[in-house]
């Protein structure tokens, strides 16, 4: 249903052209969930805004985005407006800032219904009530007349999901939907998203920095680093045989239940590269414990190696003889990994 090919997005700034998304391709079918994972600033949010066509005016993009076989996000904004809400919609990261503070939430839900579906006020209100109860909000009649600031964080995020679902979109972007929420409600919101996605048979792109969030929920996972997709695989495959050192590092930075308490988490040392002048070779090389001379000179291509459907871009992949050798070499010669710790 969604076909993204070699999409690049850059922003004009005073420092130069920031290449926020740099050649990303994937496909997504109805009823599927794609998890997009990476650190903040890796371009994952820009990617979803690019596909939605919600970029600011100083951005430019190239590549092809096809939605149901039709090229979208062209020059005409009017054209995109017909897609927004009815074909694809978005759940934003922070429900506090993404809900209008001075507009009743009911109005924010019915507004798009009335605009897109041209229904009567009564019908829109009725639909809004149903939506609110379907996203698990008690006393929906009362909530309709409230403002965002009168609700808890989890409640607001439920409202935002209701708004996003109002016009029955075929595709839903969830951009870090739980980052701004309390840990206790994060799982509830994710379960709600998953349930709605299954019920409405939508395609969903779940953007997060937390591998744990997508673990049980996504069909496929794409790991992004510095604007590029560096490893992509079905969820099971990715967790059982991850190949890219960055994916491994991400996983190591998540606490696990079966670890002894007070186990130190491995943070990824260093910082993501400057997106105005990215490194020539592999972009993760400066922080990678496996990095060899080759990594700094030549960028590895993203391709399928052994398992079908599992793409990654690395010269010395984790869990392979080459990788083990590279790691041993680095640890032996310098003591600490290059740029690591």
């Amino acid at each position, binding site marked *: 249903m969604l076909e993204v090919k070699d999409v690049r997005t850059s922003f004009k*700034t*005073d420092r130069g052209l*920031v290449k926020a998304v740099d050649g990303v391709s994937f496909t997504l079918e109805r009823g599927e969930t794609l998890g997009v994972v990476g650190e*903040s600033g890796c371009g994952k949010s820009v990617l979803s805004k690019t596909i939605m066509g919600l970029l600011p005016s100083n951005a430019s993009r190239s590549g092809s985005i096809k939605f149901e076989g039709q090229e979208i996000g062209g020059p005409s904004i009017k054209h995109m407006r017909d897609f927004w809400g009815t074909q694809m919609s978005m759940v934003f990261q922070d429900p506090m800032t993404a809900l209008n503070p001075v507009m009743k939430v009911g109005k924010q839900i019915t507004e798009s219904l009335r605009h897109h579906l041209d229904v009567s006020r009564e019908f829109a209100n009725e639909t809004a009530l149903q939506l609110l109860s379907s996203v698990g909000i008690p006393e929906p009649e009362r909530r309709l007349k409230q403002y965002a600031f009168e609700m808890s964080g989890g409640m607001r995020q439920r409202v935002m999901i209701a708004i996003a679902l109002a016009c029955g979109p075929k595709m839903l972007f969830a951009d870090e939907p739980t980052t701004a929420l309390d840990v206790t409600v994060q799982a509830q919101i994710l379960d709600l998203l998953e349930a709605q996605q299954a019920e409405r048979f939508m395609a969903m792109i779940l953007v997060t920095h937390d591998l744990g969030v997508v673990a049980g929920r996504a069909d496929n996972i794409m790991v992004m680093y510095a604007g590029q997709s560096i490893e992509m695989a079905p969820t099971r495959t990715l967790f059982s045989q991850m190949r890219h050192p960055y994916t491994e590092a991400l996983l190591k930075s998540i606490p696990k239940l079966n670890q002894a308490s007070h186990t130190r988490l491995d943070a990824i040392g260093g910082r993501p590269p400057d997106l105005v002048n990215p490194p020539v070779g592999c972009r993760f090389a400066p922080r990678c414990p496996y990095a060899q001379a080759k990594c700094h000179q030549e960028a590895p291509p993203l391709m399928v190696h052994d398992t079908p459907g599992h793409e990654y871009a690395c010269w010395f992949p984790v869990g392979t003889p080459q990788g083990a050798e590279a790691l041993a070499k680095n640890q032996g010669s310098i003591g600490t990994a290059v740029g690591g710790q």
Partner: protein
Amino acid sequence: MSEVAPMTEASPEPTQEEEEATKRGLGIAAWLAIGWLGCMVFLAVSASFLPLDDPINGSIRETPGVSYFTEGHIFGNDLLGRDTLARVVVGTSTSLSIAALSIGFGTLIGGFVGLVAGYVGGRIGTALSAMFDILLAFPPLLLALTLVSVLSPVTETDPPSRIKRMLVVALAVGLVSIPILARITRANALSWSQREFVMAAKSQGAKPFRIMLREVLPNVVPAMLSVALLGLASVIIVEGGLALFGLSINPPDPSWGNMVASQVDDLGETPHVWIVPSVFIFLSVMSLNLLGDVVRDKFAVREAAI
């Protein structure tokens, strides 16, 4: 908003303000403004030395009411045969003196009170700032009008001299400016007083007065300067307003405001007599506003809330 916003991540979109602030050197407009104000100050200072006609008494030999670019009168003269150039130059010295005196006075008192209110804070600070608010509840021109008329009542004796009259006007307008300057100083002093270096000075046992003068004041100066520049512009305008009500300096002594006010009921007779000082007022106010903005942007003075 925090005081220091560390730029950890390069945000893809620089905000409009950032863009403007980095682009702006001291643009050509600012230099023009400085140039114009420089000329004005020169005229004001040297008014009594320049070879000008008598600004008060017209000469009987002149044809009265001639317009611009007449021989001997580049800006023409009025119906009493008084040279407009001479009057506007002397008017410059009057208007600028009133502006400088009143804002100097207002900055000194308002700055001090604001500094104390901001630094000491607590109940004193609240009481002082409540007082500013009450004084600000009077429209400035109205307050100035009332103060001048109260401070210089008609008496049977001779009208006061030009200098004395100027001082009265400056005092009244200065009083009006105190709460404005005090409020902005207080707001800035308040935010600076909570900074680490002030805490550090305190913890080393520095006396409050010393901290106020050595640590807080220098940081508040840009904000005060910016407001003072805008204040000078306002005083020039207020002086004109006072003149309309016959409460600036006494005619026939010229000030910019007086020259416009004296013609306001008869604008068609000799338009150059009021248009010339109007242009002087307009350019000076615009220059001062511009420089006030430049100072504010340069030092990133925040329109301190609170």
